[in-house]
């Protein structure tokens, strides 16, 4: 039963990644139609780059064979030449962007999950309405305010870079956007589990255990499903980097996607979208797998 669930989660992740790759391939192929038509050997695109594009995207092949060839190229580390960055391999550029984005998003997600757990243990599992309301605001609200602060106070510096101050600003934006959602998720999980844990809570209170210690136990019991939800939220924030990073001027994968779209570079846009979307799907599936592995209630196949 457990093996079947793990296989199902892995198949779901694979299907998601394939879907993202197919969408980006189609977008790039349609997007490439017009620019390529005007880019001959003597045009703006070097002949080698044009041949590379035809090879990677299978532009002369039928659609399905072209898609298969594109996936094969990606797996072998070739994403096709970027039109905007002078023919540099788009997969290489996208991976460099991901290397700047992933650590910040992962660190901010982890920090917001820890902060949510600390709040529940220290304060309680009810979320005040203003904090719950903040959870509905998109991260770019905070990014726009920091962009304003960048002009008014000089922090973070109003120049696009992946420097420490921008990374810190990005971390703060992701943290501010995620923390209320994490808190809401964790408190809901604890309240949902309240029925199962009622006996434990009663016994612990009767033994004289303090409320924070009891809540710490409840957080521990909710850790596995919370990890799954946190991974899902982190995946969502990862794809929102496409708006957050250009606003903040942080040069990660999101900024790269924006630059590619703004400068009509379908090859780079498709590759970055594939990586960002694939990572979002993988994060969600990793969370589900983690829950299957760690939570004894689901690991034994008892829960529906």
């Amino acid at each position: 039963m457990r093996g079947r669930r793990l296989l199902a989660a892995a198949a779901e992740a694979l299907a998601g990644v394939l879907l993202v790759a197919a969408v980006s391939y189609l977008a790039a192929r349609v997007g490439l139609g017009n620019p390529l038509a005007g880019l001959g050997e003597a045009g703006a695109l070097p002949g080698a780059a044009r041949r590379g594009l035809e090879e990677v995207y299978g532009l002369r092949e039928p659609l399905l064979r072209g898609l298969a060839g594109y996936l094969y190229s990606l797996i072998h580390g070739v994403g096709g030449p970027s039109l905007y960055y002078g023919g540099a391999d788009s997969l290489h550029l996208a991976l460099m962007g991901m290397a700047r984005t992933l650590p910040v998003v992962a660190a901010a997600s982890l920090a917001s999950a820890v902060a949510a757990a600390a709040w529940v243990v220290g304060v309680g599992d009810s979320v005040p309405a203003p904090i719950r309301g903040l959870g509905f605001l998109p991260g770019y609200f905070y990014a726009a305010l920091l962009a304003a602060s960048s002009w008014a106070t000089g922090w973070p510096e109003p120049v696009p870079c992946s420097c420490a101050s921008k990374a810190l600003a990005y971390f703060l934006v992701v943290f501010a956007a995620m923390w209320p959602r994490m808190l809401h998720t964790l408190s809901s999980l604890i309240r949902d589990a309240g029925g199962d844990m009622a006996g434990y809570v009663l016994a612990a209170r009767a033994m004289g255990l303090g409320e924070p210690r009891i809540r710490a136990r409840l957080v521990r019991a909710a850790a596995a499903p919370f990890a799954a939800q946190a991974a899902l939220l982190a995946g969502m924030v990862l794809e929102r980097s496409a708006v957050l990073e250009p606003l903040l001027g942080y040069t990660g994968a999101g900024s790269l996607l924006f630059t590619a779209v703004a400068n009509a570079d379908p090859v780079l846009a498709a590759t970055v979208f594939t990586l960002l979307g694939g990572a979002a799907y993988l994060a969600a599936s990793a969370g589900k797998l983690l829950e299957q592995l760690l939570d004894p209630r689901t690991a034994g196949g008892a829960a529906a």
Partner: protein
Amino acid sequence: MRRNARLAVLAAVAVLAYLASRLGCAAAAAPLSPPSPLHPLGAGPLGRDAACMLARSAWGSVEALLAGLAAGGAVLVASAAAGVSNAAWRLVAAVEALLAGMPRLALLMLLSLLLLLEPWQAGLLMGALAGVQSARAVASRARQLAREPYVEAAYAVGAGRLHVLARHILPGLGSVIAAQASLAASAAVYAQTGLAMLGLGSGAPSWGSYLALLLATPGALAAPAGLLQLGAGLGLVAASAYLVYWALLPADEGAA
């Protein structure tokens, strides 16, 4: 306030936003001049009254909001209908599993490469994708309702699936669908604003495109009027998302 009255408020706001889109905003003063009694938000980056410009831009955002509400609502109603049939329920579950994780904002950005998305188009796509996220939950609830004794009794006296859906399933799911559709609407207006703030899309006037103008004007955010307009623009976007949520709240919650 009763739900019908709240829906009437929402409709009135939409009509006002449409009428305001016809406004002509005359030049007010020097660009980004500070607020005054005549120009409460000061002048915009082009020297026009910022309050008038924000009012004029409202329709683009409201268009995205309404399109998101319609698309999200349609997906959820279709999911509820699918819950009545086993095969359709399995299909909804499979589609949800596949599409719920789709990176929506990045997808809109990728599509901006191919199309100059109008606000309503961005709202429609975003609303539909946001609706898909709750599709399985709604279909499962519809499936539970379809097994209730009173629904089985309706089938026993000869009621068809369409009748059961219209008389028993959809009314039973009304508040769930309304809540999820309002979330789809807010996702739509937030996504459209985010894209427009970066200068993507068709360039039709919206709060996002006004904010893009502010962000792209060197020094605009260093001026008090610019900061005030940024805050007002973001506040209007958040207020519009909340307005839909408030208007669609179930009757008992809205009365509180």
